[in-house]
């Protein structure tokens, strides 16, 4: 008993002495679920390299916006870029971090990944419930070599509000005026098709598509790749057939008009020009207050993302994300030096 007491006293003393050494800078973020696996992996690597702890809670874009407004986190993540008015009203600065693509995954006996080709207007008609059979003339015209069956198309969509749906509907509305008028763009939709089911989360949609013969559904590329699902190639704005690859996502990001983007880089990367651009691409964003109460914390957040832009590319590729092209990273970092201040002084130096 005495020994035990002594031991615990010694342990407590050791902890007390060690505590200041162990106390390290830590920054907190919360928001979008789409980039969460990447942010968490970056944070782990960054902690090993620099000893700074970054916590990111994947609570959804809506949660991220609410948390940054309540100032309970150091940075917030969102898949849907916030409008300049909102950013200016709250004194928030917003920048993109990574880009990801979405694919139309399908389940049709006898047809493999990469064999099916779709274009925007046809995909919109499928989601409008106007094309209901796999051997519809429009489908045959795009795929003259495939033997498409006389089977009903089951349309799978997200049942929970999601940035994935926002990017997908942005694309359909961009290529089909009818979709824009009848359905619109949003995180949660009123889908018109009769043969459509909603499933929760990317994994839910992936699961339903794999379950139902004749199903088609939109998922983030990472889910389709990890589950080895069949996905359709798309015809892009330049009229070329493209495969969903990290290169074609990156091409879309590089060909986007970032220079003329509104404040907060809130442009969509939908249907960008260029022969190699994948048409359904979206960026995810970070929000941070322009006026930082704690200069050291604000700088730590920016340092983390600067490190990630410079060293995090490989990790991102492993997880099927694409970091921004260099030219855009330079623009963003130049912004930081000007816009993010504490007590009127800029806190980030290149």
């Amino acid at each position: 008993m005495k020994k035990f007491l002594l031991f615990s006293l010694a342990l407590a003393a050791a902890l007390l002495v060690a505590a200041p050494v162990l106390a390290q800078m830590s920054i907190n973020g919360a928001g979008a679920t789409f980039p969460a696996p990447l942010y968490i992996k970056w944070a782990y690597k960054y902690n090993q390299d620099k000893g700074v702890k970054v916590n990111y809670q994947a609570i959804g874009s809506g949660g991220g916006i609410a948390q940054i407004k309540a100032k309970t986190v150091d940075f917030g993540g969102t898949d849907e870029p916030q409008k300049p008015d909102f950013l200016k009203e709250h004194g928030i600065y917003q920048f993109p971090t990574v880009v990801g693509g979405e694919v139309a995954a399908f389940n049709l006996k006898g047809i493999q990944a990469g064999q099916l080709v779709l274009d925007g207007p046809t995909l919109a008609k499928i989601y409008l419930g106007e094309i209901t059979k796999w051997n519809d003339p429009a489908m045959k015209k795009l795929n003259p070599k495939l033997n498409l069956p006389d089977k009903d198309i089951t349309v799978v969509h997200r049942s929970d509000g999601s940035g994935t749906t926002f990017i997908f509907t942005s694309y359909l509305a961009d290529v089909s005026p009818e979709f824009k008028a009848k359905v619109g763009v949003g995180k949660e939709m009123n889908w018109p098709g009769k043969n459509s089911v909603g499933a929760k989360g990317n994994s839910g949609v992936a699961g339903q598509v794999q379950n139902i013969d004749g199903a088609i559904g939109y998922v983030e590329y990472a889910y389709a790749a990890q589950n080895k699902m069949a996905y359709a190639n798309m015809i892009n704005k330049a009229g070329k057939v493209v495969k969903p690859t990290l290169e074609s996502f990156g091409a879309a990001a590089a060909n986007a008009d970032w220079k003329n983007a509104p404040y907060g880089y809130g442009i969509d990367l939908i249907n960008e020009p260029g022969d190699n651009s994948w048409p359904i691409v979206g960026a995810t964003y970070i929000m941070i207050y322009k006026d930082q109460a704690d200069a050291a914390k604000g700088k730590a957040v920016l340092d983390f993302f600067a490190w990630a832009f410079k060293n995090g590319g490989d990790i991102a590729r492993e997880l099927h994300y694409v970091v921004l092209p260099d030219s855009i990273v330079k623009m963003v970092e130049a912004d930081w030096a000007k816009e993010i201040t504490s007590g009127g002084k800029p806190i980030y130096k290149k």
Partner: protein
Amino acid sequence: MLFEPMHPTITEAMSEGKTVSVPRAFSPGTLRRARGDLYFQRLTAACALVLPLIMIAIGLALVYYSIPALKKFGPGFFISQEWNPVTQQFGALSSIYGTLVSTFLAMLVAVPLSLAIALFLVELAPPRLSQAVGTMIELLAGIPSIIYGMWGMFVFAPLMAGYVQPWLHTYLGWIPGVGLLFQGPPMGLGMLTAGIILGFMVLPFTCAITRDVFKMVPNVVKESAYGLGATTLEVTAKVTIPYGLVGIIGAFFLGLGRALGETMAVTFVIGNSHKIALGLFYPGNSIASCLANEFAEATEPTYVSSLICLGLVLFVITYGVQVISQMMLKRMYKAWSVGL
């Protein structure tokens, strides 16, 4: 008179808050005990008060946050099928319809099955088997609902799509009237699948209670029926079930309450579509599944308020079901003055 409390008049008077003058004959110890009873009674009363307080607080909050939606849409909110977050138009009808239909289907599955299982366990099964199955039922009741949902989506839905739905459509779909129920895309998801999964979830609860009710039917009553030459079926139909009827109906109402509010399992298999279709193969939605899906990313005030108003509707439905069941049971007790 053997178990009568020592000084009932004093404890009673004190619990009613009256002051009692204690005759000399009582020792101080008795008085202390009486006071202890009073404090204990007050403590338990305070604990019991927590329950209605929470209920009232939730009800008030639901009403308060529903006001914006009710102001905007008026009574039309309850009869409109339109649910469009893009245009911010909301109506509760499809969710109310889905909640009621899926619950009805669940009871259609659970009631006959739990009656049959309980009868088998109490009347017919060898004791060892009865015990084993009884334990399994209790285990089933403890499985979290998301497991039912996942099982429903990955195992049960494909079975429905591959065998059950095509069969139902072919053999029952042609009947005028009833046939309309067996229409829709046979993809394994939808109202029917949700109803059946819900039925399976309710089953352990209704079954366990029904079994206990049957067990409490006095053997004397049953044995006298057997003695008169009745068969097992006759004893069951004419003695066991009527004797336990009130308890059985109580069990079913309990299951009904659970089915109404079930969330995760339904979300997985109901198909999540805000449309009303008569065909049971079509996807639908229930109030609880709609809330689970949409609340997290709802940011617009009207949207949030409409979702909370849906919650209020569910609150009222569940409360209404409980009130009706209590009234019904009371009336049955009075009318028959027998049974459990």
